[in-house]
C-alpha cells in the first residue's frame, strides 16, 4: 500500500500539473473561435449527459491545426524561434564555458564567492533586469554614450529592437543555466588527467580539446538544453528588446490570445510548441540519466 502511494504521488503530480492543463488546452485547440465567453465553441454541457458529451465531441475538429500549416506566418515563427534559440544557445555556451572554466580553475577559497556572483542576479526581478538592458542598449543608452565618449564610434549603434538585442538579452538571462552544469562537470575533472595528456605529447590546447572538452561534455549538453528549451518559447525578451522583424513563437502566441482573442488557434500553436519541445526534453533527460549512471 505504502509503495503504491509512493508510486502514485509523482503520477498524480504529473496528471494534475501537466496532463489536465494539456488536455484543456488541446480541447480548446480543437474548438472553433466564437464571439462568446469563453470565446470558443463547443463547450461541454454536463447537464445534458451522454448526448451532450457526444454533441461536444462532434463539434471538435483539426481545423486550427490545418490553418497553422496554411498560413506561413506560423511555421516561419517556429523556425525562427528554433534558429534564435539555437544561435543564442551557442553564444551562451561560448560566453559561459570560459567563465565556468575560470571558476573551476580558481583557488578553492574563491569558488563559493564566484558561485554566489553567478547566482546573485536571480535575486532581483527578471523584468527589471530586462528593462535595464533597454537603458543600456538604446540609442541614448549607456553603451552608446560610453562608446561615443571614447571616440570609438561617431554615430550611435542601433541595437535595441533588433535581433542582436534579443541575443544579448537571452545570453545574459540564461548564462547561469549554462555556467552551473559546466562548472560542476569541470570541477570534478582530475587535474592529473591534463598532466597525463601533456605527458603523452599533447600541447596545452590539444589536451583541452581531447580531455577537458570530452569530460565536460555532459555539462555542456545539460547547459545547452537548459538554455535552448526555455528560449524557444521565450516571450518577454523578444517583446521588450526585439523589434518588429523579430519573429518568435512566444510572441505569436501572445498576439493570438490577447490581440486576436482567437483562443483555439493560440492553443493549437501552444500544442505544437509543446510537441516540438518534447524532443529536446527527452534528449535532456537521457543525458541526465547517462550522467547519473557514469557517476555511480
Amino acid at each position, binding site marked *: 500500500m505504502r509503495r503504491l502511494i509512493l508510486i502514485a504521488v509523482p503520477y498524480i503530480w504529473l496528471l494534475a500539473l501537466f496532463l489536465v492543463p494539456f488536455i484543456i488546452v488541446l480541447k480548446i485547440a480543437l474548438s472553433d473561435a466564437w464571439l462568446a465567453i469563453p470565446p470558443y465553441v463547443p463547450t461541454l454541457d454536463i447537464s445534458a449527459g451522454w448526448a451532450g458529451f457526444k454533441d461536444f465531441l462532434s463539434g471538435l475538429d483539426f481545423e486550427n491545426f490545418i490553418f497553422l500549416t496554411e498560413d506561413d506566418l506560423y511555421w516561419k515563427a517556429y523556425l525562427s524561434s528554433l534558429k534564435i534559440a539555437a544561435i543564442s544557445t551557442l553564444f551562451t555556451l561560448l560566453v559561459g564555458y570560459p567563465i565556468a572554466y575560470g571558476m573551476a580553475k580558481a583557488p578553492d577559497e574563491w569558488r563559493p564567492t564566484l558561485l554566489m556572483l553567478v547566482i546573485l542576479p536571480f535575486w532581483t526581478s527578471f523584468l527589471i533586469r530586462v528593462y535595464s538592458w533597454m537603458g543600456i542598449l538604446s540609442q541614448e543608452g549607456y553603451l552608446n554614450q560610453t562608446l561615443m565618449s571614447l571616440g570609438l564610434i561617431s554615430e550611435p549603434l542601433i541595437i535595441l529592437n533588433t535581433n542582436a538585442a534579443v541575443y544579448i538579452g537571452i545570453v545574459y538571462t540564461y548564462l547561469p543555466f549554462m555556467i552551473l552544469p559546466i562548472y560542476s562537470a569541470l570541477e570534478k575533472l*582530475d587535474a*592529473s*588527467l591534463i598532466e*597525463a*595528456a*601533456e605527458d*603523452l*605529447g599533447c*600541447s596545452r590546447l590539444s589536451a583541452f580539446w581531447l*580531455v577537458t572538452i570530452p569530460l565536460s561534455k555532459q555539462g555542456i549538453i545539460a547547459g545547452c538544453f537548459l538554455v535552448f528549451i526555455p528560449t524557444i518559447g521565450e516571450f518577454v525578451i523578444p517583446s521588450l528588446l526585439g523589434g518588429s522583424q523579430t519573429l518568435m513563437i512566444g510572441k505569436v502566441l501572445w498576439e493570438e490570445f490577447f490581440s486576436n482573442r482567437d483562443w483555439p488557434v493560440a492553443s493549437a500553436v501552444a500544442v505544437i510548441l509543446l510537441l516540438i519541445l518534447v524532443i529536446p526534453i527527452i534528449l535532456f533527460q537521457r543525458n541526465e540519466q547517462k550522467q547519473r549512471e557514469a557517476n555511480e
Partner: protein
Amino acid sequence: MPQDVFAPWLDPDANPIIQFKNVTKKFGDFAAVDDLTIDIYEREFFALLGPSGCGKTTMMRMLAGFEAPTEGHILLSGQDMAPVPPNKRAVNMMFQSYALFPHLSVWNNIAFGLRRNGLPKDEIAARVDEMLRLTRLEKFARRKPHQISGGQRQRVALARSLAKAPKLLLLDEPLGALDKKLRQETQFELMDIQEKTGTTFVIVTHDQEEAMTVASRVAVMDHGKIVQVATPPDIYETPNSTYVADFIGDVNLIEGKAGAMDGDKLAISWGEGLADIIGTPHTNFDKGQTVYFAIRPEKVTITHDKPANPIAFRGKVLDIAYLGNLSTYHVELPNGQIIKAQTANNRRISRRGFTWEDKVWVSWTDTAGVLLEN
C-alpha cells in the same frame, strides 16, 4: 669484476641519463627538494624511497616537466631540461592515481600517446596490441577504465606510459593501491618488463620491501634530501646513518662512546657493568665520540648456554613475535636495553627452545654490526 654485473655507477666513463645538479624546489619558503645532486644511469631501475612528504613526487614532477626547479639544473642525456615542456620530453610518467582517461577505452588510452606522434594507423594498432600482450590485457581492450579492476587499471597505466617507448619511465607509487599479494606479483612483472624493454625506470615508493625487491639502486630520502644511494644489499648491510638503518628493515640501535682503536676494531662502552661492544668501523671515530652501533636482528644469535663468542650479553626473553617462517625475540639486558634477535623457524613449533622469562644469551660477531656517527 665480471663483465655481466650491471653497475654503471661504478664506471667513471659511463654517461648518466639523468643528472640532478644542486636542484632545489621551493613552495613558498618550504624546500620540498633541497640541494639535491644525483646521477641515474641508462637501464637502471632506480628507487626513491622515503616517508610521505619527503619530496619524492616533487622530484618526479620536475623530471616530467610539471614543476620547474627553483635552483639548479636537471639534465637528461646531457641536455638541460629547463626549457623543454612536458610534451616534448622523452619521459613518460605513470601517475600515482593512474590518471586513465575515463572517456576512452583501454585500447584508446594506450593509443593516446602514439596518436600524438602522428604515426600511421597500422603502426599504432601494432604497438597497442604489443603493449596489451606485454601487460596481459588483450581481453579488456574494449572496456572503459571503470569496467576493470584496480590491478588491471594499474597495468593499463603502465602500458600507456610504455607505449611511446620513452627513454625514461617514471612510476609514482605505482603499486600503492594494490593488495599485498597482487603487489608482489606485479613487482616481478615490472622487473620483467623493465628488462624486456630496456627502459630506465625511476620508481617512487614508501615501501622499503618494494624498493629492495625491484631496484638496482635505492635512494633513501628525508626532508627533500637524499641520505644515501646504494644497491639494496649495500643499503641494508652498510647504512650510512641511523635514519637509513632504521628506515630499511628492522634494526637494533645501541648508543655508546668510542673507546680506543685496536687494529681495525673499536671498543664501544655503552652501559655500566656491561662488556664493551667490539665493532669494525668504516670511518674514523675519535675517542669519547658518540657512536651508534646498528645490528640487524637476524645477525644476533640467541642461546641458552654461554656462547664461545666474546661479544655476548645475558638477558631475559620479554616478548616473542612468531611470524611463521621467523620468530623475533625481544631480549631485555640488565641495563634495560632491548635487543631483538631473529631466528629462522626451520623446526616445528613444539621443538623451539625459548619461552617468556627465559634467561638467555644474545651474541654476535665483531663484524656483524655497523658503527654510525648519527
